[in-house]
């Protein structure tokens, strides 16, 4: 099938690539653009490990076509750190041992950031409900929730200090 030219903004930088219409955004990110931080878990929208931000909305990139990203803005886990400085969520996941195998982690990080960007002080119930679209089969969810709560607190304190 003939490939289509796609240009989009990826983590703040313009990128262009060729995609077959049947390639998912996830496949384009990993196989064409070589950003392998975004993971494939179930491939049908249930597990959340491929979460990215598309025009500011959290989506599962396995259920988005690469060609749909034409003219859009995409943010992935690779865009979270500032140079060598980890995002507070990334640091909190390490500090709280909120991962074991790590396949689900990029999805959890992107999804948790989407929540904290709009709600700086969510309740535990709100965090658990928001992250119900992200599955972890090894760590268990408590450490992940604690890490999100700790990162939320740190981000609020950073903002207050400014």
């Amino acid at each position: 099938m003939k490939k289509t030219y796609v240009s989009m903004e990826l983590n703040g930088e313009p990128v262009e690539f060729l995609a077959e219409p049947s390639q998912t955004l996830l496949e384009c990110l990993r196989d064409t653009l070589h950003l392998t931080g975004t993971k494939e878990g179930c491939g049908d929208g249930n597990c959340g490990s491929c979460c990215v931000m598309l025009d500011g909305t959290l989506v599962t990139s396995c259920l988005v076509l690469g060609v749909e990203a034409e003219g859009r803005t995409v943010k992935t886990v690779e865009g979270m750190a500032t140079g060598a400085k980890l995002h507070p969520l990334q640091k909190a996941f390490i500090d709280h041992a909120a991962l074991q195998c790590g396949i689900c982690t990029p999805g959890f990080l992107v999804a948790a950031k989407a929540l904290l960007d709009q709600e700086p002080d969510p309740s535990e119930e709100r965090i658990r409900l928001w992250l119900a679209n992200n599955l972890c089969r090894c760590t268990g969810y408590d450490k992940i929730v604690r890490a999100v709560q700790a990162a939320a607190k740190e981000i609020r304190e950073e903002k207050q200090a400014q």
Partner: protein
Amino acid sequence: MKPFDYVAPTTLDEAVHALAGNPAARVLAGGTDLLAQLKGGRRETPLVVDVKRIPDLLSIRMEEGGLRLGAAVPCIRIATNPDVRAQYPALAEVASLIGGTAIQGRASIGGNLCNAAPSADAVPLLIVLSAVARVAGPGGIREIAVEDFCVAPGKNALGEGEFLVDLFLPKPAAGFKAHYLRFIPRNEMDIAVVGVGVSATVTDGQITTARLALASVAPTPLFVREVTEALVGKAPSAEAIAGAAALAEAAAKPISDMRAPAEYRRHLCGVLSRRALTAVLQ
């Protein structure tokens, strides 16, 4: 996925033209059903027509007499839209219980309707809100009442080359309330064992409108017209509610499957109908 062509028309006419003469073409809105089906090999198509570049399909606007909701508007925009939250709170609520957060970023209420699953959460509510579907196709524009839209499991009333443009929801009258209740064995992200949508208007202590529709208990979402006849003209009371709930239970035609046995579903129809009617008639 098997290869297919992709077009993203920017006007209704372009979309009609793209779909014309190509009955196997599929319309893409949020993709949470279509792309999962294509990936799973449950469906094949030579052409995907992405309708999300057509402004009408992505707009939510209050009009004279009601709300016009674009067919491809994702649930997250419906759930957070100030007009929807103020005038149609039950719709905002149902938009926030379909799938998880990332699915709500893509999945649309229009897609929920077109997919025509008997368990679709939004459809009973759309029926009790008296929503009307506006459809475009080779014969021009036509309207279909939402209760007539789903015709069999996975089959809708769209003819060849037709697609859903938007849904029109009449403005709620004073005293109008609507509610959707479902039973799922988990806390979230599950398929309804039974769903019940109800609406009613109470004016001067008398029920002037009442509608009830069920999910997951028939081949299509089920509009129980008998409930309207039974309630209109009466005063809200526990007896009236119990009578209407019994009619809903009797109208259900559930099957037994891995989610629940038929008798359990029938029982739930009565319980949820009573609770939902109590919520709108109090």
